[in-house]
């Protein structure tokens, strides 16, 4: 299972990465894309939208199902990845390069409350 140690994870299968500019990139995990299958559609949040942690804010749809994507931490949407919207299958190719949106976090320390790689891998394995 591909779970990079440098990222943080939510129980709902998002990954989060603190970027050098202080924003947080958010995507879905490799485990999630593998379970969903070939991606065919992505709906992204509007820039400027303020999100509480746990808010539904994006949708990824595969050949099999639609899945909600939740904000892993509180913050404001500052970017949405048009390249992934135009080519949803890039999530299947590299889930960790295919960020969906970026948040300016209200409190960067909130990332610390997310799962680390080991905890997420344990959760994902138990769901298999």
């Amino acid at each position, binding site marked *: 299972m591909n779970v990079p140690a440098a990222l943080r994870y939510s129980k709902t299968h998002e990954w989060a990465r603190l970027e050098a500019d202080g924003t947080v990139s958010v995507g879905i995990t490799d485990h999630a894309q593998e379970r969903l*299958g070939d991606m065919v559609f992505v709906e992204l949040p509007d820039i400027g939208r303020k999100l509480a942690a746990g808010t539904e804010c994006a949708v990824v*749809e595969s050949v099999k199902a639609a899945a909600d994507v939740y904000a892993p931490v509180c913050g404001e949407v500052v970017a949405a990845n048009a390249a992934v919207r135009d080519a949803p299958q890039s999530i299947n190719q590299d889930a960790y390069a295919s960020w969906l949106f970026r948040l300016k976090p209200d409190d960067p320390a909130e990332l610390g409350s997310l799962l680390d790689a080991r905890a997420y891998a344990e959760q994902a394995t138990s769901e298999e």
Partner: protein
Amino acid sequence: MLRQTPLTATHRRLGARMVDFGGWEMPLHYGSQIEEHHRVRNDAGVFDVSHMLALDILGPDSRAFLRYALANDVARLERPGRALYSCLLNQRGCILDDLIVYFTGEFQYRVVVNAGTAEKDLAWIRALRQRGTPDITPQCGLCMLAAQGPNARARVWDALPETRNATEPLLRFHAAQCGEFFVARTGYTGEDGFELMFPAVRADSVWNALMRAGAAPCGLGARDTLRLEAGMNLYGQDMDETVTPAESGLAWTVDLSGGREFVGRRALEHGHPLRKLVGLVLLGRGVLRAHQRVVSAHGEGLVTSGGFAPTLGRSIALARVPNAVNVGDAVHAQVRERLLEARVVKPPFVRNGRSLIGPIGEPE
């Protein structure tokens, strides 16, 4: 405990994602469902369909019996070797199952029914036997494979050269028995190809020969997008015991000519269907899915099957809508909180690798 086909272990070895399909452990895909879809449209793919049930119906009464049991008329099968698609109806004219019946020889037919309905069908058909007493024998020891795609027949001949002479002359919807192989030029993808039935002990050797010949393993996921593009109904989703053939786009499969008495006829003749099944093409981005609400100028309907159509690069659906809705109409489907515009079309959407829906424009 899920039921397994003769090839379950082989699918697992190939890395398939296995799912529960009507109580059977079946491959959903072997990596990419969309790639498998394209392989069938452009070349050749093989599906394990051994979960379906073949029933052999034998005896001097078999023809009269099937003429009574089925909504389509097996009398249309003038010579052994021909096949016919039909609904199995109940007395209310509603659909118990859809099936293919092959005329296999004098006083012999083979009926292939869906996996999820097999036990119900068998009990139903046996209960109709007061109308004649043919032998009805489920063929449980068979492996069934569907080789589909423009190159599928050639791949089968490479893999099983002994079947070539008997199967090369087969027209569409015809079948032949060659040795232990029953080979039918039928399928569920909108492409050319063969469906093969043979003793389960040969399952691995035949599967491997088809792989060596260049056919790609394909799972139920691709089977579903291929049949949806081909405008073919899925039992349990686009039709069930609450709807009639006319409400399911299948009026053409009910033979009301002549005075033939068959199960469901009286109900169909007195019924006035208010709904029909149409195709939808989503104009913009998004994905139509089963159970979404459809809003039209003539009232509401429901998507029965929907998804992303890999050949078309956009979403399509089958939907049950009020009768007054017509091809070319604009309707809306409710996708989460939004109403998305769709065009009503006549299925199929794709046949023999080509789009039949005409120009619609890029989705945004």
